[in-house]
């Protein structure tokens, strides 16, 4: 196991390991022993002998001065690496340097987290309003949300869904919080990549994303959450999404931008 390593040295000669047959013989011994187990003891014995001999030979190679030899550096030297100064384009005309981390200025990560949290807090308001206006209890939407995870919450026994079930509420809250937080984080990260105007950013985060999200939900809800699909009122659902989107985007856009540490200098 312990073999000499070669420290790089300057000079016309370099100390290298001598070629040796023992590694191959050791492998052969091991393989023959394997073949012996599978077929006949004769191979086993032969393999054992070769293995032992190779082991002794190998240890002999490890002794100082036996396994190494000086090798002259006679090979032709490599072509020198040619300098090719200055041939790199700039990202935009006039920018200093060409090494970048993108984008150059970002919202701090905390802005996204805050956006997600605030959005997550205001988002249930339309849902509760819908529940009360349509004669359900406020636990109804929460229980429905939990139906993403739990089987059997399929809207068949509506009376059950009107009541407070601590487990369902806990699951509903966890799902809601996790998704709000991650989407908030995405807002914080992605909004700065949209052209640098607040209107555009608000339109994207407040309108476009909720629209896409509602569309996706509309298409996939029957599988993702049949309970919700059976009971959902789409206009109210979309309202919730817009409320979230607008709030989260507003929180993010209002935060101060910080400059990213440059990867490349001027």
């Amino acid at each position: 196991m312990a073999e000499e390593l070669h420290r790089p040295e300057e000079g016309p000669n370099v100390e290298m390991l001598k070629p040796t047959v023992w590694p191959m013989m050791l492998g052969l011994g091991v393989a023959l022993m394997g073949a012996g187990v599978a077929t006949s003891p004769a191979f086993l014995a032969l393999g054992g002998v070769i293995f032992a001999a190779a082991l002794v030979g190998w240890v002999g190679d490890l002794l100082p001065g036996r396994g190494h030899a000086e090798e002259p550096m006679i090979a032709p030297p490599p072509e020198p690496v040619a300098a090719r100064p200055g041939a790199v384009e700039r990202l935009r005309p006039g920018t200093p340097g060409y090494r970048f981390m993108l984008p150059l200025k970002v919202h701090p990560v905390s802005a996204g987290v805050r956006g997600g949290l605030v959005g997550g807090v205001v988002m249930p308001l339309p849902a509760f309003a819908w529940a009360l206006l349509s004669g359900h209890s406020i636990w109804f939407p929460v229980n429905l949300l939990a139906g993403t995870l739990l089987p059997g919450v399929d809207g068949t026994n509506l009376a059950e869904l009107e009541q407070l079930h601590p487990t369902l509420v806990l699951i509903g809250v966890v799902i809601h919080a996790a998704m709000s937080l991650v989407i908030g984080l995405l807002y914080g990260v992605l909004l700065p990549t949209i052209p640098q105007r607040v209107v555009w950013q608000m339109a994207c985060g407040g309108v476009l994303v909720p629209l896409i999200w509602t569309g996706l939900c509309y298409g996939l809800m029957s599988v993702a959450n049949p309970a919700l699909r059976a009971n959902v009122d789409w206009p109210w659902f979309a309202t919730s999404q817009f409320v979230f989107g607008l709030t989260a985007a507003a929180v993010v856009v209002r935060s101060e931008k910080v400059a990213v540490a440059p990867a490349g200098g001027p």
Partner: protein
Amino acid sequence: MATAVPELSRERLSLVAGLHEWVVTVDHKKIGVMYVLMAIAFLLIGGLEAVLMRVQLLWPRADFLPPLTFNQFFTLHGTTMVFFMGMPILIGMANYLVPLMIGARDMAFPRLNAMGFWVTLFGGLLVYASFFVPGGPPAIGWFAYAPLTEKTFARGPGVDCWALGLLVSGVGTIAAGVNFVATIVGMRAPGMKLRQVPFFVWTILGTSIQILVAIPPLTAALVMLIFDRHLGAHFFDPQAGGSAYLWMHLFWFFGHPEVYILVLPAFGMISEVVPVFSRKVLFGYEFMALATMAIVFISLGVWAHHMFTVGMSRTLDMFFAGASMLVGIPTGIKIFNWLATLYGGKLVLKSPLLFALGFLSMFVIGGLTGIILACAAVNFQIHDTYFVVGHFHWVLIGGTVFGVFAGLHYWYPKVTGRMLSERLAKWQFWLLLVGFILTFAPMHVAGVLGMPRRIYTYEPGRGWDLWNQLATVGALIQAPSYLIFAFNLVWSLRHGELAGDDPWDAWTLEWATTSPPPSYNFESVPVVRSRRPLWDLKHPDDPDWKYE
């Protein structure tokens, strides 16, 4: 192939002396070349088995191959491609490249390295020796579920040849893993920090860690199997209370990380090729390294997603489903980072990039079908169907094979001093791409239509005929692609364009020495101060190291 590298042919060695030189060598480059040649030989053998199986499945109730032969072929095909083609070709390329990339004279343990190669080769020969034992090769599948492997059901020594062959070659693989870790941690060029090594080296480090953790359990399981068969032990013998279940767990504890052992080095090669051929630095190097390590560790905890149908508890099912989906995230990060590297680059559309683009467009499909399979309930339906066969070939060919071809086309000039023929490479690429899609896309459909894997024939009228016929045609289109590649390797050795030391205008250390490199790699070991030491030399006015 590389026996005729210029320095050797000068000396006019006789054939015997030439062979002797290869047998006794401890040079990581020669060992690497031997690994790759061995892997290509096994690729052709395993490929032949695959083609014969595809011909058998061309029509329902065909009798081109007898059932036992078919079962032996898919056992050998799987075993060969994983253990004697996939791992050796990756270990071989890493063997050649890692010391050059980190500016070392050789691996940390050159003799151990040689032994690793020889036991891998002998292990492969031992598995194939089963053709000459009574009962012939094993017919147990590469996963070899007990108790089908016990003496009661598999009397002949074929299973022993298989188990011992894997055991022996496993020793070599572990040796290689130990060697890479020691080399990468302890032998980098002066100044080269771990976060400055070429990205390929990172993936080899990750692969080696997985080898060290995942291969020994397989070794232990194989030992148990051999004890059962030869010493009357009862590890996997249900009659004595032993459990078929234990083998499954041990096998897949190895078997799943194995997939990443096979694909991480390909990730590494892509991460070398894409930047050089887009003329840009790798986007998000640190995140890529983090993602690699995340894959290494998460993938150690997902093995039982191969076992959703064995009747685990629902909670365990969910744990393994969740963990398996999580692996998709670091893998996704890598794909996005490669795309970001391409984006805005000036692409040089040579063969290495062509294969890298093939990798990018195909591997993502294999990854996504993996997400589908990780959904436990969906898995109840499509587990062990042709959907799975389609999925993992998409990962292993779309990922590993395209990645390896990108790498082989990229580094061939370094190894031989000559370029591979671009024309042949383009033929190879397009035949491979078309044939590969045509072979494996229909398999997904067949699987969804209820076709189980590992069946030597199928009933007419089940709606599977067309999909099988397409797949067979695809295999026949794919096959010449590999032959063209083998031919290109040999032909270009003599007739390829002279390459020079740095034909691709690349940035990592292996291009700073001659092609082929001398046995001692570098005359004087360079000092490294950035991820792109050759950029620093080519742009002395504006080197990278000022900014990294």
